């Protein structure tokens, strides 16, 4: 444990920890409130910002309703395919490009960097993208969601910067030993780049997990819709069901269902973060040093 050297530093530590605790509370409290709402039976739901309900009164009915919905597993599967498939495509496309642009001796490197920046600075817009995707016949194909964002330019540059920080000596030694560039990439560079791979991978994965807009645009087949679209439909249904004759979720309050849907969507990503947090901090900082 580090010793606190002076009174000033002690005060600084107190203030800093206080601020961080406040920020933490700002993040945690709404989340906790949402969780409490999702497990609270209707008659105990109150308009006040209730943070505690006796656990003996908790009900998991809202979660049970969602998980037993006929389309849930289907949409969950689609989301997993989109996330893992999209992630594989992202890394497959981003890593080689980032590596190539990190090699200082690459002919035309400056021009290639500039070309890579163009779509970052000038977004072509929705309609050209739509025309390209539909022109390729990708409508009603999960690839329509995975391929268009195959390379996130910002992610690629962060990764490139990370690669550039790896001492050149490693690569030079491999080249002297006769290794090809692919060999160097996969056997030398990537093993040293676990933090950035996990970090960028997480960025990509979260993006794919939350895919909502592109699926409703390109996936007309409802059987291909991912979880966010289903949850959105369910929530819309909850609103309109108030006006119709039957209510799919009549046993649970709307507030609990909405809260549960938020939690269900967040849960997988919340579970992933702690495992890679160590690498995540290192990766996100290390790649951002050089411009």
């Amino acid at each position, binding site marked *: 444990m580090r010793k606190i050297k002076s009174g000033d530093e002690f005060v600084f530590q107190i203030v800093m920890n206080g601020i961080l605790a406040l920020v933490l509370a700002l993040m945690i409290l709404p989340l906790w409130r949402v969780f409490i709402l999702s497990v609270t039976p*209707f008659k105990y739901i109150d308009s006040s910002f209730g943070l505690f309900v006796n656990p003996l009164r908790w009900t998991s009915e809202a979660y049970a309703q969602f998980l037993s919905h006929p*389309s849930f597993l289907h949409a969950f599967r689609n989301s997993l395919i989109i996330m893992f498939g999209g992630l594989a495509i992202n890394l497959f496309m981003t890593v080689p490009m980032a590596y190539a642009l990190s090699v200082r001796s690459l002919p035309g490197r400056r021009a290639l960097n500039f070309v890579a920046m163009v779509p970052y600075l000038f977004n072509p817009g929705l309609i050209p993208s739509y025309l390209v995707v*539909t022109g390729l016949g990708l409508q009603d194909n999960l690839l329509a969601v995975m391929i268009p964002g195959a390379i996130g330019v910002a992610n690629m540059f962060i990764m490139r910067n990370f690669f550039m920080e790896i001492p050149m000596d490693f690569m030079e030694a491999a080249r002297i030993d006769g290794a090809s560039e*692919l060999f160097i990439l*996969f056997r030398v560079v990537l093993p040293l780049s676990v933090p950035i791979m996990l970090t960028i991978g997480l960025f990509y994965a979260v993006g794919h997990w939350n895919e909502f807009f592109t699926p*409703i645009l390109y996936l007309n*087949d*409802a059987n291909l819709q991912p979880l966010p679209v289903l949850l959105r439909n369910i929530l819309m249904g909850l609103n*309109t069901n108030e006006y119709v*004759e039957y209510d799919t979720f009549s046993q649970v309050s709307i507030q609990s269902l909405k809260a549960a849907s938020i939690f269900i969507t967040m849960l997988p990503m919340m579970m992933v973060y702690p495992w890679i947090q160590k690498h995540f901090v290192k990766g996100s900082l290390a790649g951002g040093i050089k411009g």
Partner: protein
Amino acid sequence: MKRKIPATLVALALCLATALSAGAQTKGLVDVELWALQAVTEAGPPPADWVGYQIIRDKLGINLKLVLQPSSFTDQDTKISVSAASNSLPDLFGVNRDMLMKIARQGLVAPVDNLLPLMPIRTRTHYSDAGRNRLVTLQGKMYGLPDPGAMDRVEGVVIRKDWLDKLGLPVPKTLDDLYKVAQAFTTKDPDGNGKDDTYGFGAFFESSGLSSAGFGRRFDYILGAFGVPGVWNFESAAKFQFNFRDPAFRDAVEFIKKVNAEKIIDPSWSAPNKDEFRARWKQGKFGIMWEQFAALATKANYKDFDANFPNGEWIAINPPTGPKGYSSNGLDIAQARIYAVSQKAVKAGKGPAIAKLLEWMATDEGYYLCGFGVEGVNYKKDAKGFITMDGISPDNAYTAKAMQPLTQLRNMVYINNDIELAVRYPTYKSANGKLMDPLAFWKFFKNSPYTEATGAGFIDPPTNVNDFKRFYEENLLKFALGQTELNDKTWGDFVKGMDALGAKDIEKTAKAKLVDAGLL
């Protein structure tokens, strides 16, 4: 590793090739792509083996490709905008009126007047209402097919009769009566629990488009008592203007301010939270409100209130009469679920096939199949032709969760007739054995005074609609909450602020359009 990369590329190429081959045409049949508005947003589409597809193929010679539109209007608009911009609109698609007018002016949707004679039954049952047809008419031509939309006049004022009885109060008729009842509900412990925990009025700040800006629809019966419900005065061309210019509107704001200051309205009213509002009436927090009949009285929606207050009872009452004799439950605006036919489809010669499909949906076969499923499996008909579930397995009933995809097209066939209403809103027994009839509330509201305001749906929002609406609502709310003093000067400043945001120009443009459409 070198071997794995080409293998992945080959796999990607195969996927692309598979996708490219998906658009093949079906020989001998007319392909019709329908983007339908979902009836049950969470239920998903009919399965591939839905008997309807087979009938449509065999009898009509149509290969129907059914796509369910996104669940929200915003997402629907985005999807249609993008496909319109890329000239890839489907053959037949559900669309809201604003978007329809936009793409009709761009020449992307076809007039449908010449399709109507090809579907005589459907024209009679669906497209014979002049008010609805006006919603889709542009320069004398119909650019959309306006199916009967949601039921009209479905909301109204309701009051806790058990509370009235307990306090020995008569049903209020005037705004003054209602005010006194609200005071009593707040101060005289109408639920008898010994706590000071009830209010007279309940509401929430419900505002969506320009036509419901301001306090929103939940307060229309109060504004209606002053003769100024909604945003506009549609009484005549000479009187057409924003209601806030009418001195009676300020009187209505004064009334709401008084109600708020005396704390006889549930204080959560100023938040735009419908779920909260509905949770609170089910928890017995207030005794007077303006509510939609199904949200109040269908079994699924009434059950929580019923469980909390087995002897509680809401009754519908006429909207209160104001100081000058005005009374209104709110605005009566013609509604429709609109379908449009793309110009591309007509150019490809698909017009007659589309008409044939829609006409089939209006025949008995199409109506019952799309509306209720397969007879004998998902429902039965009694001697009068009404739907019954007698002898139908609950798992197969058309209302069962697993069966809901079978009736995703029901909004294209429903016409709000007695057959539908009887099964959509069945009677049931409440916890204390009382017969609950949701339709009785609707029938009461339908016969209560409303203010005709079809023109509200025709007024194009100004480009600064968000700023306009925000300024309007924030100021009204500040007046009502007492945050801004309400006097001649502050009210005059408010009106000047509205004019500075273009209120006069908006009135002028709207009036010209409504006169042109014959709505004033």
